[in-house]
């Protein structure tokens, strides 16, 4: 895998471009936004397809159910707001009218995790992956960079069924391939290795990429897999890798409870118990700060991944 940084871009802009492209490919794609058009980068779609864009005002519950109503007649609605308000605020609306009713609604959620920064804990949701993955019928996608978010958005529009698509605010290294086809549910092998498997998602994928040369220097040959689809989880890829490496580190910008690590742990406990460490937020709320400060403060940075790998490799021996 080529880890060359093409540029620094925010994943939400990847969503904005992906939505525009999806709208061009399929006239049934429509979009709703609850007074955050600029933040979600939905402005270009709104401009090109004004009759297919619905400004709902600050009314997330109404937005979700209107999208479900619209999906009935074959439209492909995306709803856009911050991840905190896209999930927790409207959980029952999603549960009953989208997941249980199995409607083709795409919940686009920006500003997830601590990297939202200075707005603080009210806005930094760290529980959304758990909330969404617990719902039957729901697909949960957490792409890692701009290109992947754009490609995921296009794939999500083509897929039939409820989807939660999580992305973020800050500019981060953009390194995946420009037009790589995004395959929902298929784990992405970033580097093969033998000593440990690192499973990462979202912004933490790049943090894990940066850990690879450090680990190599220590004599640890790590395998890195990007789990961009938390649900359905690519169980085959997980077991294949761990069958070889026999120990695991997971890394995510989310609570340990309910996150990627928790999904992986479930698969391993049932099929292949082995030492495991989790890089995640552990049962606390976020706070104000810059994204970089917060990643350090909540132990979600490259050194934390390196430490977790050292620890888990030692536990294996």
């Amino acid at each position, binding site marked *: 895998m080529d880890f060359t940084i093409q540029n620094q871009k925010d994943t939400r802009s990847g969503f904005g471009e992906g939505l525009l492209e999806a709208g061009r490919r399929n006239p049934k794609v429509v979009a709703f*936004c609850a*007074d*955050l*058009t*600029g*933040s979600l980068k939905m402005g270009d779609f709104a401009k090109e397809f004004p009759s297919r864009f619905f*400004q*709902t*005002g*600050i*009314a997330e*519950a*109404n937005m979700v159910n209107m999208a479900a109503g619209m999906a009935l007649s074959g439209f492909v609605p995306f709803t856009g707001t911050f991840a*905190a*308000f896209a999930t927790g*605020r409207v959980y029952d609306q999603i549960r009953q009218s989208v997941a249980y009713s199995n409607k083709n609604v795409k919940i686009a959620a920006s500003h997830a995790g601590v990297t939202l*920064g*200075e*707005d*603080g*804990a*009210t*806005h930094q949701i760290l529980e959304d992956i758990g909330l969404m993955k617990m719902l039957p019928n729901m697909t949960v996608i957490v792409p890692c960079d701009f290109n992947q978010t754009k490609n995921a958005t296009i794939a999500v529009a083509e897929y039939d069924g409820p989807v939660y698509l999580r992305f973020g605010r800050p500019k981060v290294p953009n390194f995946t391939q420009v037009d790589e086809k995004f395959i929902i549910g298929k784990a992405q092998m970033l580097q093969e290795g033998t000593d440990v498997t690192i499973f990462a998602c979202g912004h933490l994928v790049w943090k894990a990429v940066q850990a690879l040369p450090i680990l190599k220097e220590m004599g640890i040959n790590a395998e890195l897999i990007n789990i961009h689809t938390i649900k359905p989880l690519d169980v085959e890829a997980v077991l294949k890798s761990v069958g070889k490496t026999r120990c695991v580190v997971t890394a995510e910008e989310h609570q340990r409870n309910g996150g990627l690590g928790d999904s992986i742990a479930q698969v391993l406990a049932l099929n292949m118990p082995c030492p495991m460490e989790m890089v995640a937020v552990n049962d606390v*709320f976020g*706070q*104000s*700060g*810059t994204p970089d*400060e*917060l990643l350090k*403060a909540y132990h979600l940075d490259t050194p934390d991944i390196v430490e977790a790998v050292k620890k888990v490799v030692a536990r294996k021996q």
Partner: protein
Amino acid sequence: MTINELERIASQVRRDIIRMVHGCQSGHPGGSLGATDIVTALYFDQMQIDPAHFRMDGNGEDMFFLSNGHISPMFYSILARRGYFPVKELATFRRLGTRLQGHPTTAEGLPGVRIASGSLGQGLSVAVGAAQAKKLNGDQHIVYVLMGDGEQEEGQIWEAAMYAPAKGVDNLIAIIDYNKKQIDGPTDDVLSLGDLRAKYEAFGWYVLEVSGNDMHALVNILKLAHENTHQGRPQLILAHTEMGMGVDFMMGTHKWHGTAPNDEQAANALSQLEETLGDY
């Protein structure tokens, strides 16, 4: 307090807002500047409070809730200037480890804050609950809540708006920062609120209107509203404000809802606001 004294406090609060938002290069100056006069009049003239002995339960004093938590710089400045915590702490706004989080929280124990806000639409319900508790406690004091106008688009607001008159919650004074703007643009373009006064009246509220940047008018309307309490109905004050009030280039637009000024813009803004109580 005299009107002149209140206006001088408001000028300093506006300086604090600009300096806080500029200092951390984030936050919400527009709504903060527009709502400054309302909350200054409340905290420095109208409300019966004991800042030196902040009590979470608010028993035996008036209570204020900020539902539109994004205008936290205004709230923090007024709390500090009123004596809830040291003024110099304003310099920590939005920085790692601060008690002055981006949106008000109770997690860090900042005196003056009784509940987290930031996710819009929840404050009116909280205020109704607190007002009912005062009734149960036999406490004659009043509960105040400030909300945004864009915030009125949240359905939960109307759940509380229906409840309060139906249940005779008459020790409650809600105020709307009626600046007719929100993030994506003028409220009329985003989602028109229609005749807000008529809507609240139809729900059973007693509605007052005021020019929300006129200190004299504010002081009078708050007195009037206070006299009207305990007469069977909740009250709403529609406070017509100007987003960005006091800084010419921040007025007449929604662009400064959540944008921090750069060095040059901050200097320009501060040149328009008299330093009356000493900068933090």
